[in-house]
Structures are given as structure tokens and as C-alpha cells.
């Protein structure tokens, strides 16, 4: 495919879509699928046939539309209305050319002008819920692969990197390293072979952003990776994706095949000299593989254990070659940055954090689902305007950053969410999982939960993490059953310091974060557990309360 073909296909497909009377979009992301979206889509397709509307009405499966709590979601009609909790019984009404037939569904219609939609700014998720992730033409119609064409035709690799630097984009995997600088580091290496790796080993419990992007718009990630390959001088890319994400794996495989067939990946990309292959590597369920050196070991077929850095992967990564590792969401931002320019991108967000951030809302919140907001939006806006607030309860804390993050109490609800401000209050941006807790959640138990996670996921290579997480877990466990003593609290604090200072990789260094942040903001809960042998939230069983503590 040449660049001209690309534009021609876009025009053709857009005209075809415009000629349709009704293009029904049915969310087939993992969330809606598990509440019956597949059957619904089949029923709609059958109904189109039954009503003889083929050629005039079509049904498309799309990626995540965001409001997972109301799934399965369907968008239908010339008036483009969104309906929630749709069932195969609604198929006839959804297909019907007469909007009056859809009046029965009015009670389940979702207002697209509600703050849930209007307060969001979509870059990464721009196509999610709009294009069919299994059709390349859909992505091309939405302007897909034009950024790659622009980079190859109009920019030198150096200019592409400059554009990314200008955008101020920072790594979306959690740590927030400036993406442009990382690209420059890899580009500067004089090596015959370089690699681009996409980290899709989304392991934080409570996070499903990367999964949704891969399921909803896989070509966007492929395009971002190809642009990165061009910029840093790599010809081979790997996507390291969680083995648990079956649908994402399947859609990526389809997308790679489609793109290779049309010469958008592989050899002679867009009839130019550039070549770039992408292969999948399926993870096998180890949280530590999200750490970049462990991820590299795993791609090489070894135990996923991290190694000492430096050398950092941009100097010596996969098989010793310079390797660029970015997260799914980071790559997904790239096509838009190249399309609209780094300056445009940097106009969104705060001084130090540019662009948008995708969050997965979960826990005690009305609108669980996937959202994208500009950096600097306040937690109050995210949780109450977009999230719809806490059903039957009072806000107690929001957990960000998974087992490496912390719990944010009510007093910080008006804090603008960006890398710096979250770090200042002892949490991290993390990959974007945002779990809301109400008064029924016990903070000591939450700390115990995350410590158990880190204990089980510790790879065992360095002692502070391997042994420290076990000791910290045991103290927290004893707190939740009413066996802990005041000395335990001191020990917990000193172990927290020890792990943070001496662990080899991020897993161990950040494992104490949930403990330290809950200790800082909810000290009275720890006190109650230890001195009164009582759980204020009424969550812990305190089985040993009243018995003498084992000192």
C-alpha cells in the first residue's frame, strides 16, 4: 500500500459508512462480552438479515465504550443514542429504521451529554468504541497509519524524536520518565540491531487500561511502535502481553497480520525503504515481569528476574542490544502527537505532566469503567462528576498505583492529579488503576492485601524483598486478627524503610508504599487494631481480640 492508497481507502470507507442508514456499534470489549455482548451482536446481525436491511444497516463490534457498569452497550439509530444493559430481545428495536420502535429502550438510554462523557478528553481512547478493532479499514477510515506516513515522508528520525520531546509525553507505565529522552538515548546508540518493546504486562490489580486499548484499538499501538522503530532505528518490535488477556492477544495477532498484508508493517512499509516487524510474546503470569529488566529476561525465555541497573535497557537490553521499552498507553499517544504536533499535545495538562491519562475506575463507585481525562483534573472531578460518586456510602480513600501506590484520603480530593502531586502525597500515578473505597473498607486490611500480593509476587532474587515482604505481611496479618503489639508497629515502619532503600528493583522498593501511606493518613486505624483490638470499619474478624498478645 502506498500513501496515496491509504488516503484513497480512507475516503472510500468513510463514504461507504456515510451511505449507511444505521451503523450499529456494539461494544465487544472484555467487560461487555462477559455480560452477553457476543450473543447480542449475533442477534443484531440476524435481525438485520430478517428485516432485509443488509447493505443499509450494519453492526460493528467495537472496543470499550467506557461505561462498563452498564454493559452490554449499544449505539444505534440516526440519532446516535447509546443504550445500556441491552439484550438479544432488543435486537429488533435496535435495527428498526423507525426511531419510535426504540422508545421502549428509552429507560435504558445513556445520556451522552452527562459529565461522564463531557468531562473526558480522548486521545488514547479516541477510537475505542468507534472503530471495529478487527477491521483495518475501520482504523484507516479514522485516519489510521497517516501519522506513520507523515513520519516516514516528512520527518527525519531526529525530527520525530524532537516532536515527541516537545510534546512533553511521559511514560504511562507509572514512573513517568520523559518518553522523548528515552527515544533519544536509544537513537544515539551506534548498534546494528536495536529493539522496540511494548510493555503490555499490565499486572496491577485493579488496572485494565492497557487491556482495553489493545482490545479496542490494536492498530494504534502497532502504529505507535512502528513510528518509534523509525525514530530510534529499530527493525524489530515485541509486544509482551499478559497470558490472561486472551482477547487482546487474539486481536493483536489479527491486527499484525492485516498490517503486514497491506505493507503497513513488515518489509517495504508504505512502499518506502523502512522495515519493521512486530512479534508477540505471551507472558506467563509473573507480576515482576512488568519491571523492564525482568521483562527482557522473560522475552529471552528465562525466569523473569530483574537485574542490577545500569546498564539501562536503552544501552543494553534485549540480547544485549539497545532496547526501547514503553508502555501500551505511551505508544498509543504517539500517532496523535505526530498527527497534531508536539506543541498541541503539550497544551493539554499541567506544567510537568502533559496530555491525558486513562484511568480504570473500580471499587465502590457508581460508574465503574474506563475513562480518559486531561492531566491535572482533580480527584473530585474524576470520582464524583465522571464516576458518579459512591453509591450508598461515604468516600474514604482512593487507591492509585496498585501495590506500588498509596491510598489518598478525603482531604486531597481537590488535588490536581498529575505525576508530581501524587508523588508528593505518598502515592504514585501508576498505570492508572483507581480503586475507590468507602467506610466498609479497612485500611489495615488493604495494606495487608497489597503486602500479600507483593510477598507472593516477589521473584526471590534479593533478600530485602524476598524476606522483608514475608515479615511485613505477617505483622499486618496479626494486626487484622488482633494479635499485634505496639512493637510490631515500630518494626513495620523500620522494615518499610529497609525495603525501600535496599531492594533491587521497583517491586521491592515500592512494596511498602501502601503501608506507609495508610500509616500516614489513617494512623488511628492502626492504633485501634493494636491497642483496642478493634477494627473501626468492622471488616477484620479480630479472631484473637481479647486474648493476650504473643509478645
Amino acid at each position, binding site marked *: 500500500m502506498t500513501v496515496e492508497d491509504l488516503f484513497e481507502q480512507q475516503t472510500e470507507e468513510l463514504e461507504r459508512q456515510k451511505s449507511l442508514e444505521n451503523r450499529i456499534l456494539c461494544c465487544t470489549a*472484555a*467487560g461487555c*462480552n*462477559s*455480560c452477553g455482548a457476543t450473543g447480542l451482536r449475533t442477534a443484531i446481525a440476524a435481525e438485520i438479515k430478517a428485516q432485509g436491511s443488509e447493505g443499509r444497516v450494519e453492526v460493528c463490534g467495537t472496543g470499550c465504550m467506557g461505561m*462498563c*457498569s452498564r*454493559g452490554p452497550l449499544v449505539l444505534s439509530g440516526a440519532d446516535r443514542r447509546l443504550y445500556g444493559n441491552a439484550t438479544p430481545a432488543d435486537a429488533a428495536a435496535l435495527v428498526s429504521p423507525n426511531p419510535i420502535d426504540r422508545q421502549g429502550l428509552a429507560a435504558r438510554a445513556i445520556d451522552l451529554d452527562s459529565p461522564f462523557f463531557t468531562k473526558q478528553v480522548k486521545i488514547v481512547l479516541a477510537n475505542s468504541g468507534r472503530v471495529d478493532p478487527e477491521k483495518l479499514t475501520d482504523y484507516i477510515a479514522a485516519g489510521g497509519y497517516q501519522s506513520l506516513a507523515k513520519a516516514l515522508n516528512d520527518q527525519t528520525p531526529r525530527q520525530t524524536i524532537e516532536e515527541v520531546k516537545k510534546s512533553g509525553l511521559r511514560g504511562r507505565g507509572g514512573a513517568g520518565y520523559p518518553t522523548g529522552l528515552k527515544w533519544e538515548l536509544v537513537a544515539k546508540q551506534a548498534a546494528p540491531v536495536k529493539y522496540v518493546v511494548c510493555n503490555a504486562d*499490565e*499486572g*496491577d*490489580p*485493579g*488496572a*485494565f487500561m492497557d*487491556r482495553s486499548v489493545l482490545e479496542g484499538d490494536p492498530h494504534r499501538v502497532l502504529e505507535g511502535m512502528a513510528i518509534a522503530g523509525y525514530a530510534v532505528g529499530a527493525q524489530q518490535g515485541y509486544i509482551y502481553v*499478559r*497470558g*490472561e*488477556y486472551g482477547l487482546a492477544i487474539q486481536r493483536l495477532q489479527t491486527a499484525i497480520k492485516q498490517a503486514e498484508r497491506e505493507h503497513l508493517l513488515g518489509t517495504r512499509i508504505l512502499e518506502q525503504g523502512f522495515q519493521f516487524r512486530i512479534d508477540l*510474546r*505471551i*507472558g*506467563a*503470569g*509473573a*507480576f515482576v515481569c512488568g519491571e523492564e529488566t525482568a521483562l527482557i529476561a*522473560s*522475552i*529471552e*525465555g*528465562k*525466569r*523473569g528476574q530483574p537485574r542490577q541497573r545500569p546498564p539501562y535497557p536503552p544501552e543494553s537490553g534485549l540480547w544485549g542490544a539497545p532496547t526501547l521499552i514503553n508502555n501500551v498507553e505511551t505508544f498509543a499517544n504517539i500517532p496523535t502527537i505526530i498527527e497534531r504536533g508536539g506543541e498541541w499535545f503539550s497544551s493539554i495538562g499541567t506544567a510537568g505532566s502533559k496530555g491525558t491519562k486513562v484511568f*480504570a*475506575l*473500580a*471499587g*465502590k463507585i457508581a460508574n*465503574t*469503567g*474506563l475513562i480518559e481525562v486531561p492531566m491535572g483534573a482533580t480527584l473530585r472531578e474524576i470520582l464524583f462528576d465522571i464516576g458518579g460518586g459512591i453509591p450508598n456510602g461515604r468516600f474514604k480513600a482512593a*487507591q492509585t498505583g*496498585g501495590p506500588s501506590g498509596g491510598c489518598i484520603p478525603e482531604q486531597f480530593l481537590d488535588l490536581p492529579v498529575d505525576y508530581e502531586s501524587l508523588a508528593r502525597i505518598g502515592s504514585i500515578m501508576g498505570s492508572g*488503576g483507581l*480503586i475507590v*473505597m468507602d467506610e466498609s*473498607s479497612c485500611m489495615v486490611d*488493604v495494606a495487608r*492485601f*497489597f503486602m500479600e*500480593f507483593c510477598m507472593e*509476587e516477589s*521473584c526471590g532474587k534479593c533478600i530485602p524483598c524476598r524476606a522483608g515482604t514475608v515479615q511485613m505481611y505477617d505483622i499486618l496479618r496479626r494486626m487484622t486478627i488482633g494479635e499485634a503489639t505496639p512493637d510490631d508497629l515500630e518494626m513495620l515502619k523500620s522494615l518499610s524503610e529497609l525495603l525501600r532503600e535496599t531492594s533491587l528493583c521497583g517491586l521491592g522498593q515500592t512494596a511498602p508504599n501502601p503501608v506507609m501511606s495508610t500509616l500516614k493518613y489513617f494512623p488511628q486505624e492502626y492504633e485501634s487494631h493494636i491497642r483496642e483490638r478493634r477494627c473501626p470499619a468492622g471488616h477484620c474478624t479480630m479472631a484473637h481480640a481479647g486474648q493476650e498478645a504473643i509478645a
Partner: protein
Amino acid sequence: MSASPPTAPVKDNREKLLERAMSRHQYSGDALIEVLHTAQELFGFLSPPLLKTIAHKLRLPPSRVLGVASFYHFFSLKPKGEHTFVVCLGTACYVAGALGLVETLERRCAKAGHTTPDGKVSVETARCIGSCGLAPAVIVDGAVLARISPAMLDRELERIGVQ
């Protein structure tokens, strides 16, 4: 799920398929994880003779193969039950009461990580299956069940004939 897996690799086309997977990767030791994925898909679990065969073919020390197979949660060194229940213990599911689901399964079937003596049901837990919007979630034989309660779990167990 898979029928009762053999204790040793038997002569059927599964061996041939595994061979094909290894040759696709040019018997490279770097492809160990891919090969183990294929082997588990074909045989249901990774038996010691199977691991030895793979080590031999990829020219890797058996210790390295066992080391990798036992490091990753995804690989199972023991045969699985006829039905598998995976309870998600991610944060969202946890705060939505996933522990109650584990308790139900442990009471009625087997401890988490184990299979009932009759080989009918395996109970497992997962770190996070990424269906946080549908918490608490349980995967029954590959299908995600959303917002599930212990009572719904009881019905699911009845459906597959667990007393």
C-alpha cells in the same frame, strides 16, 4: 477442558504439534516460554517427562526448564480438574467480597490451588483478570461471570453436578 492428561507424552498428534511449535522457533532456547505455552495447551499440564523432552529438544539443562516452568503462575505442573473455577482476587474484586467466593469454593470443593480428589473441580485464584468493572468476577471454564455472589456460585456448582 482437557481430558485426563497422560503421565508421559504418548504417540498421538499432540507430540507432532509440539514438535512443529519447536521447529517453528528453530529449537531455540529463547523460545522456551512459547514452547511451554503450547505444551500446556496440548497436554493440559506440564508433566516431568514432558519437561525433560522439551529440555532435550531445545538443548537446555532440565533444571533451567523446570526453573522457568515453576517460576510462572500460568504453568501448571499438576493435572487440572474437569472444571476450573478461577476467583479473581484483584483489588476491586477483593473490596467487592471475593473472599466470600473463595470460602464457598473451599467449603464445597477444594482449597485454592487444589483439585477435588475425584478430579472434578480445580479451584484457583487470580491476581487480577482485568474485569474490575464487573467485580467480583469468577472465570468458570474460561467464561467470565460478572458480579457473582456465593449463592450464584452455588447454582453454578449445581449446574456442573457438584453435590
